[in-house]
């Protein structure tokens, strides 16, 4: 028998996959899933500006992957504690691992392939 799924889940999955299409957002999500953080803290560990980090965090929050928690003047982001976040965490981590493997493979041949 076909398992029953809530339509909410598939709509949410679409939003999630769109949000995860960007490698910086996957990286941010992986970072936030290991510990809640503010945009400033996250920007320190990444080669992108704080402004870009804020934009990516907003996209992740809009997809329901992250939630905001106001802390003084800063907003701290944490992973949404819902069942899908386990799936999302897995996809972010595994996707990141494959990105690394493929870029390692591509870099062996860099220069030989016209872009």
């Amino acid at each position, binding site marked *: 028998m076909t*398992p029953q799924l809530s339509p909410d889940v*598939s709509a949410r999955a679409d939003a999630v996959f769109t949000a995860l299409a960007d490698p910086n957002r996957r990286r941010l999500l992986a970072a936030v899933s290991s510990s809640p953080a503010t945009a400033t803290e996250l920007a320190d560990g990444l080669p992108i500006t704080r402004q870009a980090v804020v934009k990516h965090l907003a996209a992740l929050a809009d997809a329901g992957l992250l939630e905001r928690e106001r802390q003084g003047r800063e907003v701290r982001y944490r992973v949404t504690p819902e069942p899908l976040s386990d799936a999302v965490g897995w996809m972010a981590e595994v996707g990141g691992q494959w990105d690394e493997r493929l870029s390692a493979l591509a870099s062996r041949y860099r220069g030989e392939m016209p872009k």
Partner: protein
Amino acid sequence: MAQDDVRQDVVSEDESVERELVIPATVAEVWDIVTGDGWLAEEVSFELVPGGEARFSTGTSTRTGWIEEAEAPENPDRAARLVFWWENERESASRVELVLEPEEDGATHLWVSETRPLEVLDLRGIPLPGSGSASYGPALLAVA
């Protein structure tokens, strides 16, 4: 939701990651790299036959698994395919599929996917059919 939509939704419920890349090298060269040490893990050992044992070590982390399907390239420009399962104490079992297809200009199109079924029965506890059997396949049930 229309009944027709259900099947597609079920498929998307399997967690899956897909990537692809075109590499300016023959299928045989790419096969050697992706099945050798240093790509899937620092140290890779596997018996490239269906049911063969597989072991992937990077630093102190080791994943073990088994081969579902292995089609080495018959000659440098033939397609190749490798499907295996891996897991460790920290991560649940997932299925990895690597497909290498020759492009017209001597390059190789590599397509990878890693899928984690929603629920995998304990793979190690299930007797596997003999290797080489045409019906050899993943001994698992994916349920929602």
